[in-house]
């Protein structure tokens, strides 16, 4: 096999078959997928959760992960944010002609690793190859199915006045790690993306509390956007304390340099939980025991005032409104 993806790899003919059997299947092998039927068949019962997401990150390899890991963790996390236990994923790749096959293999390796860690199987897949310039290297779409344990009712609309707002760790790591590698912005730092599957953290949290009302992963748009979404969806207000929001020194420094606010920078391995105040400390202790929740903190609470708005008490004392992100994050000019 040549060392680059050719249009013929997407033709449906011999080269396509060879690509699937030799380069993709070995990483994903499981009984449902190995049959190579037109659809995968699986058993499931109870309430199911279903989600889909497209991944188009640039660059596709970044400190702490790559597009493959992101595509698995992102969908696993979307299922987890409704309290579902993720079971099966599908994975569809759009590959630009000329993409290096060894890079594809590296990405498949990290897909395998992430799926193993999360305990999910990829049971359906597809590849397409498009002309050079019609896609940027590699686009991946994953969909996922999970089962919701009995008694779990988690939704962005469930926050109530008095609830506590918990955050699982430092914010902005993913966005800054990716940005540090971008064309023209390259600056060296040891920071890695926080990209991680959060399903096990969530199931540990659900073990100690049945009063978790909302879960959400603050990805694009960052923590500020997620809190606003939850406040609007639940028709409540929120008050958060800036001093309690954990931010790594590297992220702070990079944000100062670039003129960005960590509140709006993307995360890929963090969650926001809104829970009954009675259980909040118990949940926090449990979060801190998990490797993805060590820096967890209670950052604020839900209120019936200023409905749909998030108010932040700043480090200096005064309060201000924290709005959703608008437009794209662009580094400052001067």
């Amino acid at each position, binding site marked *: 096999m040549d060392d680059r993806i050719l249009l013929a790899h997407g033709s449906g003919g011999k080269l396509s078959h060879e690509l699937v059997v030799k380069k993709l299947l070995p990483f994903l092998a499981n009984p449902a997928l190995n049959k190579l039927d037109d659809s995968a068949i699986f058993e499931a019962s109870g309430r199911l959760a279903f989600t889909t997401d497209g991944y188009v990150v640039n660059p596709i390899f970044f400190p702490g992960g790559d597009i493959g890991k992101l595509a698995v963790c992102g969908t696993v996390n979307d299922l987890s944010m409704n309290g579902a236990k993720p079971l099966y994923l599908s994975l569809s790749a759009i590959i630009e002609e000329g993409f290096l096959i060894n890079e594809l293999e590296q990405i498949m390796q990290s897909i395998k690793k992430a799926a193993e860690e999360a305990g999910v199987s990829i049971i359906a897949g597809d590849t397409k190859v498009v002309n050079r310039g019609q896609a940027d290297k590699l686009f991946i779409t994953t969909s996922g199915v999970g089962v919701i344990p009995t008694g779990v009712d988690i939704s962005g609309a469930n926050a109530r006045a008095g609830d506590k707002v918990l955050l699982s760790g430092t914010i902005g790591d993913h966005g800054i790690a990716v940005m540090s590698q971008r064309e023209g912005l390259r600056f060296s730092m040891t920071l890695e993306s926080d990209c991680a599957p959060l399903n096990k953290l969530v199931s540990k949290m659900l073990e100690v509390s049945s009063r978790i009302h909302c879960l959400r992963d603050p990805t694009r748009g960052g923590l500020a956007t997620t809190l606003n979404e939850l406040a609007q969806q639940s028709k409540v207000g929120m008050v958060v304390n800036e001093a309690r929001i954990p931010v790594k020194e590297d992220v702070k420094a990079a944000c100062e340099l670039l003129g960005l606010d960590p509140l709006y920078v993307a995360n890929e391995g963090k969650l926001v939980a809104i829970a009954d105040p009675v259980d909040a400390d118990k949940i926090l202790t449990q979060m801190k025991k998990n490797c993805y929740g060590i820096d967890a903190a209670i950052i604020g609470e839900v209120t019936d005032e*200023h409905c749909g708005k998030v108010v932040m008490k700043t480090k200096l004392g*005064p309060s201000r*409104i924290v*709005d959703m992100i608008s*437009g794209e994050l*662009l580094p400052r*000019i001067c």
Partner: protein
Amino acid sequence: MEFCGGHSGHTHAILRYGIRQLVPKTVEMRSGPGCPVCVTATADLDKAIALAHLPDVIITTFGDMIRVPGSYSSLQKAKAEGADVRIVYSTIDAVEIAQVNPEKSVIFIGIGFETTAPTIAASILKAQQDKTENFYILSLNKLTPPVMKALLDSGEIKLNGIVCPGHVSVIIGSHPYEFIPRDYGVACVISGFEPLDILLCIDKLVEQIEQIEKGDPRVEIAYPRGVKPEGNRKALQLMEDVFEIGEANWRGVGVVPQSGLEIRGKYERFDADKAFSVSLKPPREPEGCRCGDIIRGAAMPIECKLFRKVCTPESPVGPCMVSSEGACAAYYQYETVEEL
């Protein structure tokens, strides 16, 4: 008045940390002409857009510029219509784009103050050294002390003190502001961008203002970790070598003598103004937009009838809402609880 606008600028930090609520009501903060995108005149934007439509031209620019509406279009719209407009993070990237596209003319829209001017000068020197023949600068760079003078001369607003820009002062030092306390009796303090820097700066300004009757207004540096009185000599030499001082057209302020940077004759082959000619219709400003007044500090964003109603970051009418460094965008983003 704080000169430096949003995104880690002074206006941004003042609103982000709630400093307006911390200082006594007798201290009123006004945002000045310190957002590089906002102060760019509509006529100059129109020129950039017209250049983008020329055949075989690639326009390179800092991000926010592409969204700012000119009289009839924007760089963003030109791009959607097929013009090749690219966002770069540094001027050197623009030189590199020229080097890999030798059959195209690559024009960098040179906006900003004394902070971006040295890097733009460095890009011209790099293009010269690498014999890059297809790289051009549309020089719209502006200087801060002359526009402060223009605002003070107009007498439109009664300023007691100026929060001098931190990053600009890293380059130019404190000497260029000395005419302000001397000739106008207005206190000047150069500030950093951390919340405590700004509080310290306001404290020093108030202290000077209270003693102004004693006749001792001066330029103080409250940002000594960044600013030396003499500035950054190397950066200043670079600017001096490449640019000469000329007039510049500021949105809201008009043409201010001695406030712009023009490319010197010895580098004129990099000057987009000399290399290309475009015909332009007379500029027109968006109806009802008070960006001009806001840039001069003569109005606060909330005094504009369009603010938050018609004009939002999602559908901005004027540049102060478009640019994340603009005063309207900062006031929009950092609404206080009292304003709810």
